[in-house]
């Protein structure tokens, strides 16, 4: 297993605000990772630290075995276009697409041209004036065409309509299959992206609370639904992730159940349901369901 990113006890505070708190993890080569969490959980700060744009308060970062800070060698192999990226005044889309290739050794111009057509980017549009969706699309095009061995997509869907999103998934998967690299998708919209992920890193209030394979997470929790008493009787002393109820009905989320446990539940007349990645994340973090939904423009 080749480790491309290693982070140990990384912390960053802005005065009293602890944006990233003692985070440790490893990223292996050629996988699609999800860096998930609410807005303000610390995702962008973490990525800024990994790309040397922000300075850590404490802890260690190694990208391709070296510290990324002021390290041209490493940074040429990384692509991180922030969701809040600033551009010079009067910079147009065509200027971004003209300048980006200079900085990324693996840039594929044909692929970039194809993506510009696919996403219908207005080449003469000013970065300050184009829509949020078009702005995101520019980031997507640069991120994909850069073919950087380590690529971060920071909230790539913001403002993208359904068609553009599908396009993004398709192009991403297609290119990832042909040119495997390490990709980190960072977003608060989990349902959108969950099928693409191989591994999940969940950040909440600056702390890393989940670092697991996506498939392990799907099905790692179960909802038990039925009459309140029957449900409580079945649950017993199990750890409860979430309780919900309506009148005499109860719906309780617990950890994974074994096959025998599942049969016992059914025998007791209870219904079992799965828990999606998004629902699981909502349960595990301090957030509410709306934190992980698209805000209407």
């Amino acid at each position, binding site marked *: *297993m*080749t*480790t*491309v990113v*290693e982070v140990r006890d990384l912390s960053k505070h802005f005065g009293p605000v602890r944006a990233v708190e003692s985070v440790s993890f*490893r990223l292996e*080569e050629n996988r699609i990772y999800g860096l998930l969490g609410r807005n303000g959980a610390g995702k962008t700060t973490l990525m*800024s630290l990994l*790309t*040397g*744009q*922000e*300075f850590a308060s404490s802890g260690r970062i190694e990208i*391709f*075995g*070296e510290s990324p800070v*002021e*390290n*041209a*060698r*490493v*940074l*040429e*192999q*990384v*692509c*991180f*276009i*922030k969701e*809040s*990226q*600033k*551009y*010079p*005044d*009067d*910079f*147009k889309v065509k*200027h971004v697409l*003209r*300048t*980006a290739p*200079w*900085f*990324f*050794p693996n840039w594929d111009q044909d692929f970039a041209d194809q993506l510009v057509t696919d996403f219908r980017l207005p080449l003469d549009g000013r970065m300050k004036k184009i829509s949020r969706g078009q702005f995101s699309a520019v980031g997507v095009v640069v991120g994909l065409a850069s073919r950087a*061995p380590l690529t971060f997509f920071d909230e790539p869907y913001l403002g993208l309509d359904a068609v553009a999103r599908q396009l993004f998934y398709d192009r991403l998967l297609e290119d990832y299959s042909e040119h495997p690299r390490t990709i980190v998708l960072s977003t608060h919209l989990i349902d959108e992206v969950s099928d693409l992920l191989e591994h999940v890193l969940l950040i909440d209030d600056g702390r890393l609370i989940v670092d697991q394979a996506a498939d392990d997470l799907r099905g790692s929790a179960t909802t038990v639904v039925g009459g309140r008493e029957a449900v409580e009787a079945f649950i017993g002393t199990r750890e409860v992730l979430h309780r919900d109820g309506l009148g005499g009905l109860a719906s309780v989320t617990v950890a994974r159940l074994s096959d025998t446990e599942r049969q016992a539940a059914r025998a007791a007349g209870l219904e079992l349901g799965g828990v999606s990645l998004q629902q699981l994340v909502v349960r595990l973090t301090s957030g509410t369901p709306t934190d992980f939904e698209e805000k209407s423009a």
Partner: protein
Amino acid sequence: MTTSTLPAVATARPLPRRLGNVIRLHLANPFTILVTPLMVLGLIFLINWVIWLLVRTATPTDPDTVADVSTGLQYSGASMWTFVYMMVVAIMAMNLTFSLALGFGSTRRDFSLGTAVTFLGLSAGWALLYTGLAMVEKATNGWGLGGAMFNSFYFGIDESWGVRLFNAFVAFLFFFAIGTVFGAIYVRFRARGLILFFLALALVLIGLVALATVTASWGAFAEFFVAIGWFGGYALSLPLSLVAGVAGHLILRRATPRS
């Protein structure tokens, strides 16, 4: 337990290439940095030209009066506008172009160096343009109207072309340099830091003026400048520019492109 072997990372591309990228990035949208200031300069020239025309038609045509008027016009500060514009260019570059360069993976060191080269080049370019236009102005006797915009007193009207070229170059460099410092302070310390800086600067300047007044050394001050002449005077700004440039770089070293 997994043993981690790291993929071999290619060596960084050579320094000139990386600096070249930063330089190209500054010039990527030539409108801001070249076209607009040139257009403004052209506009100012046109306005001046109209004024000269009016003045010429209004004044009596005897040679003495004409020469008198021409001399008066040499105190025109019309061409100064570009200096201020370049200072603003430098301030914006420290904020927005810096942010983009880092977004594209450039290091702060490469950005500082590349920006320095860019500003040196731009200073040289503008200086050549200004001096060239001054030559044309002189050759055409003030554009046929006795006007003076580039042959301005402020560049040293009696000096050689070489000296005037140097003066213009150094002047442009100075404005780029102070723009760099202002911009760097803003990026690192934000609006509050910039305000504090200007307050401190104002205090220092006021202090110096007070000192000069109290010690009645204005006379000596003036004599000094007469002694070193135009060339010396302009050359004095070089160390200031250097200090400003270095200060800008040092400030940027810990700056982040935070919005």
